[in-house]
């Protein structure tokens, strides 16, 4: 029962709480740090994408400190789960009251966060997801291009499906094959966009004379790929492509070997970006190929620290004792953009001013020049997307164990140097 005494006790406690929070509030206001929210998958099946986050954020905070800038970063883990990503984005906006949200890695993370930001009128910079699944995936009706609307607060920089298709087909043309391609497209944001009959792989491959065998969408984290392997085998595919999450590719490749299926080329998005996935295959990872968005040999420099791509990668390896991964460059570039935008925006707390400052960006970052000027994009996406260069590469076994990513095709971005020619598997 709620008695008079209870009432007095609770009100006293609440009063005390209000008094202390009242004391704390001015202290925060005086120390007007610019608060950045950062969302990425640090655990779960996509954890490899978030591996470099701690390193990037630590070095960002020490750099800004030495430059006399006052930044604070609130880091949230999406646990590779889109629902969780939307939830932490809300927390960042409502509880942490951040000034700008940065989000990275796969449509499963970027889309829910960008959509939440757009709805809450919170400026957001997003990266590491091809722009079609990001832009089209957030539309109310993805099937009807006439209804697509640009965003006012959400901005994205990365490459698009047209780039990855060009890169993959350029790589395949270096090797003699029967031009039969097997497609592994899962039922997620990326898989549906890559396998789409309008914007994805199928129409382009058909035009270029490749035969595509697409056994349909499968669930992520599946433990049996026999159906797909069987379809590829009976279709005599010599090329495998798709966009597979890292753990699934290990399962697929082992089962393909078990069932005696050996294609000449395997160009897989997402999974083969990471040395961990390739190392998990033992020696069977030799000559697998992937799209390459960033390597230490990319000829770009950080606008924040002046370091070259090679220096940043070397610093990562030194700090963590791990081989470099591609998201390092893009996570670094996110924070470069944040500092550049906040410098130009007069009031970091005014979301409209910040969003305008993002749109007006012209910055040479660690991943190349970024400007939301609509270059190389269809008109509907011109406002919110900026494109970065993409090339293709192959994993090669090193003599002392471990793998090296060698760039084997740069027709799409000739300023990035190649390191070798394509080789067939096996």
């Amino acid at each position: 029962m709620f008695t008079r005494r209870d009432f007095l006790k609770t009100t006293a406690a609440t009063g005390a709480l209000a008094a202390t929070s009242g004391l704390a509030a001015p202290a925060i206001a005086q120390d007007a740090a610019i608060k950045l929210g950062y969302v990425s998958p640090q655990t779960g099946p996509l954890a490899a994408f978030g591996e470099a986050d701690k390193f990037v954020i630590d070095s960002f905070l020490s750099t800004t400190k030495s430059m006399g800038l006052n930044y604070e970063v609130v880091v949230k883990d999406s646990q590779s789960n889109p629902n969780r990503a939307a939830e932490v984005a809300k927390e960042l906006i409502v509880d942490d009251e951040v000034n700008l949200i940065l989000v990275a890695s796969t449509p499963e993370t970027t889309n829910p966060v960008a959509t939440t930001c757009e709805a809450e009128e919170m400026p957001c910079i997003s990266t590491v997801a091809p722009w079609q699944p990001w832009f089209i995936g957030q539309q109310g009706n993805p099937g009807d291009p006439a209804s697509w609307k640009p965003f006012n607060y959400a901005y994205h920089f990365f490459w698009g499906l047209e780039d990855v298709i060009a890169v993959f087909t350029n790589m395949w043309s270096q090797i003699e094959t029967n031009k039969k391609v097997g497609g592994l497209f899962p039922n997620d944001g990326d898989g549906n966009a890559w396998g789409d009959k309008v914007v994805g792989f199928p129409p382009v491959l058909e035009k270029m004379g490749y035969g595509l065998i697409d056994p349909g969408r499968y669930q992520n984290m599946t433990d049996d790929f026999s159906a797909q392997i069987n379809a590829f085998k009976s279709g005599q595919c010599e090329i495998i492509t798709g966009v597979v999450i890292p753990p699934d590719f290990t399962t697929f490749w082992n089962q393909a070997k078990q069932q005696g299926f050996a294609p000449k080329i395997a160009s897989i998005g997402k999974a083969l970006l990471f040395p961990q996935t390739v190392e998990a295959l033992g020696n069977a990872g030799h000559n697998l190929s992937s799209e390459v968005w960033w390597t230490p040999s990319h000829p770009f420099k950080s606008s924040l620290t002046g370091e070259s791509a090679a220096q940043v990668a070397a610093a990562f390896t030194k700090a963590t004792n791990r081989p470099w991964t591609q998201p390092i460059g893009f996570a670094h570039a996110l924070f470069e953009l944040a500092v550049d935008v906040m410098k130009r925006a007069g009031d970091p707390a005014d979301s409209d001013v910040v969003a305008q400052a993002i749109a007006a960006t012209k910055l040479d970052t660690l991943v190349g020049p970024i400007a939301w000027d609509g270059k190389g994009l269809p008109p509907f996406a011109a406002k919110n997307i900026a494109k970065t260069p993409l090339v293709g590469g192959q994993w090669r076994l090193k003599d002392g164990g471990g793998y090296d990513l060698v760039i084997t095709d740069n027709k799409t971005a000739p300023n990035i140097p190649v390191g070798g020619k394509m080789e067939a598997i096996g």
Partner: protein
Amino acid sequence: MNWLDTILQGVLLGGLYALFAAGLSLVFGIMRLVNLAHGDMIVLAAFLILVLVTTLGLNPFIAALIAMPLMFAIGWALQYFLLNRTLGKDILPPLLVTFGLSIVIQNGLLESFSADSRRVFAGSLESASVNLGPVTAGIMPLMTFFSAVTVIVCLNQLIYRTSVGRAFRATSDDPVTAGLMGIRPQRIFAMATGLAMVVVTIAALYLGTRANFDPTSGPS
């Protein structure tokens, strides 16, 4: 030979599911207890094997041999101290308790191992295969299938040929009369769950080397 291959791969995959089901039906058959946490126990055993493999650098098969008595002990204690108290005329309490157990195991694993998906590495055995004329079958799926057959044959022999098996059957038929004959149903139940956990460990070994698992993959 497409259909032949499909059938073969399906049968081999069925071996894994037979292993999953063997433990579950053993528990259900003897004490009419539906263990909703069975999938999570498999994942728990897989993590146990993973820990043994990564910390001691053991072969996964040896790790599973070490994990079996541990899992037996866990199963025995679980049944003796917890699940036996829930058994009775009403079928709801054991359902609720195992449902809660499933949540406890999932979140406990999530807390200690994070949401990362893991797998147990079995070296070159993983991608090895044998050529059977028109079709090829992986060594690991074959081993899974034959382990499942062995486990089921062993359980069959145990239940029909040994005194423990006779006690199992008697308790399953009529626990009160079995009690009059000097069998303690509580002990028999604990023994059965322990045995089920040994089967679970074998299933976990093949699950962990075949595909990825994470703390929340138990119920699926």
